[in-house]
């Protein structure tokens, strides 16, 4: 039994949520649907942990679907790089599912709840599939699975606010544009190389020399995934999609969806096109990404400062944080990429905690959570507020929190490759982010102008997920060895793939 599981781990982490999503879809009992979803995500996390141990022995696990060897068949590859985003998705998936129950029953039509859980598991399966697959076209299929189910989840927010439909529609159109661009790139590559396997592509592309189809394919694939990852000028879909989605969906998407896209961005530029590094000098792209990242850092932060809607504010701050992650990648050094992997993990923890605590504060009012409407609510909900403050300080990068660790390594990497000006800009944008964090804390705690005696009390059901993620925020801020070591192993593996 155990050896059977170990042998099939790379596929089990994908098909567990996938098959459970089909079972959950036909259930009538909402509580049972939630219990089964929790069980499915729990199983996925167990499999992921087993996979972590397996990867630490073998460092590279290859799995042939249907026993067809690559490049003919579809291959799944788990290595020291892909295990990091898989871990993020499965841990956040479990925590968010535990968190989801109260909110889905409140925010969504009773008839639709079990179908919502089905979409929810489908999103998780799609995101994990995106990471595990080593087949360029299979990646497109999972891209569609994850984004279409995410679009439907966003649109389900329409019971609370009809604007969710527009937000979902924008997400659908822009997501489809991104996916289409990606598949055009894959088509061009297939035309000139005749293969879809990533490893095989990496071997065949350098032999083509300066081929225009390959350059265009590279541009299309990168642009398509950049839309999905919400890199600065292509981020338009993100704030509304996160703000109007049902609360648990905001938590799940903010913590995982863009992270996975960023991972694919890294994979395309380093694994598929990495071996032709000298030919398509990564330098030109690197400078585009660097300046886009700096723009994102400032634009996201400034938009967040002037935003009143709290969920949208956090979404804008996500754009700035994606900027930090892209900045690390664009440095193209081992420590730069390691710092972006560190921030990939840490930002998932921070944003999941922030979104959880903020939507928990809006639970009883069911209104849009505005800086003014939630005035003084922190005093009524001290435990939720405590979690919020920890995560918010972590976002700002205070010592002893995970945010500090990622800022530290990012600044170190930036200083080593670009000199003093880049760390300076990072520090300025971090300082600016304190403005909106303070705005939130002031509104939640000090501002008490309209504290009507509404029926607001703590929500004990969400303590476990919320406090657990807050604990992780502090724990990995103090003992960051695990995250840092694995990030450096991953970035060294990526860089060594180039040479």
């Amino acid at each position, binding site marked *: 039994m155990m050896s059977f599981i170990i042998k*099939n781990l790379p596929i089990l982490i994908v098909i567990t949520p996938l*098959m459970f999503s089909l079972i959950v879809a036909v259930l009538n009992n909402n509580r049972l649907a939630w219990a089964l979803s929790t069980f499915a995500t729990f199983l996925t996390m167990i499999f992921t942990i087993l996979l972590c141990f397996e990867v630490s022995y073998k460092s590279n696990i290859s799995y042939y*679907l249907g026993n067809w060897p690559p490049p003919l068949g579809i291959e799944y590859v788990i290595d020291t790089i892909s295990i990091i985003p898989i871990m993020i998705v499965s841990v956040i998936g479990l925590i968010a599912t535990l968190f989801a129950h109260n909110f889905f029953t409140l925010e969504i039509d009773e008839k639709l709840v079990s179908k919502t859980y089905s979409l929810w598991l489908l999103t998780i399966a799609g995101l994990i599939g995106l990471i595990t697959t080593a087949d360029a076209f299979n990646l497109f299929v999972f891209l569609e699975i994850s984004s279409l189910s995410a679009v439907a989840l966003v649109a389900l927010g329409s019971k609370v606010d009809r604007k969710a439909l527009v937000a979902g529609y924008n997400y659908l159109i822009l997501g489809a544009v991104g996916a289409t661009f990606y598949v055009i790139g894959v088509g061009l590559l297939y035309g000139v190389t005749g293969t879809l396997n990533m490893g095989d592509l990496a071997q065949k592309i350098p032999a083509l020399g300066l081929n225009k189809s390959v350059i265009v394919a590279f541009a299309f694939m990168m642009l398509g995934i950049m839309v999905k990852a919400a890199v600065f000028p292509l981020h338009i879909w993100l704030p509304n999609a996160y703000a109007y989605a049902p609360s648990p969906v905001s938590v799940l998407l903010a913590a995982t969806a863009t992270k996975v896209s960023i991972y694919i961005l890294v994979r395309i530029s380093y694994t598929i096109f990495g071996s032709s590094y000298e030919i398509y000098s990564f330098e030109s792209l690197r400078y585009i990404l660097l300046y886009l990242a700096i723009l994102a850092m400032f634009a996201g932060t400034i938009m967040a400062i002037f935003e009143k809607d709290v969920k949208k504010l956090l979404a804008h701050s996500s754009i700035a944080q994606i900027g930090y992650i892209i900045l690390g990648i664009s440095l193209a050094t081992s420590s730069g990429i390691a710092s972006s992997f560190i921030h990939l993990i840490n930002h998932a923890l921070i944003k999941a905690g922030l979104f959880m605590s903020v939507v928990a504060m809006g639970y009883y009012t069911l209104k849009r959570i505005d800086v003014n409407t939630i005035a003084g609510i922190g005093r009524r909900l001290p435990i939720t507020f405590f979690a919020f403050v920890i995560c918010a300080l972590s976002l700002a990068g205070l010592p002893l929190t995970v945010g500090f660790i990622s800022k530290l390594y990012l600044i170190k990497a930036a200083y080593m490759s670009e000199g003093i000006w880049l760390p300076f800009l990072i520090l300025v944008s971090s300082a600016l982010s304190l403005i909106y964090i303070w705005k939130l804390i002031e509104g939640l705690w000090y501002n008490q102008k309209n504290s009507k005696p509404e029926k607001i009390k703590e929500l004990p059901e969400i303590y476990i997920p919320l406090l657990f993620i807050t604990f992780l925020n502090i724990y990995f801020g103090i003992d960051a060895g695990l995250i840092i070591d694995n990030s450096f192993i991953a970035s060294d593996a990526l860089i060594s793939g180039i040479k």
Partner: protein
Amino acid sequence: MDNLILKVCTKVLFTPIILFGLYVQFHGDFGPGGGFQAGVIVAAAFILYAMVFSVEDCKVIMPPKLNFFLLALGAFLYGFVGIIGLILGDPYLSYDVLGSTKEAGQHIGILLVEFGVGLTVCNVMISLFYSFANFNFGKKNND
């Protein structure tokens, strides 16, 4: 639509359309066809019925709940056939172990998987039709 000729023709055509759908479905191994095409053809029979009679009549022969169940069942069948291979010791989606020989196994596997695809495609088409037919354009949607 209250037209006797249309109603009689639909009644006559309903079963042959489904039969043709099944032919396309199970002939997919040897010639053009397969689950996607067959699913759409079978769904066309139900949609024709709904258009000539009424959506409510169609919901009697294909209740929305059954429709949704079959939709999920088709996709589940696809995944489950893959899992059988997994349990019998081969990788996921490997059909070699299903039959006595490798060829027979692949045959059985693809037949079952395509049936799952056909079931899902057919029911997705019908449920899409239902949701558009139920949508009250311009009125407030109470459903």
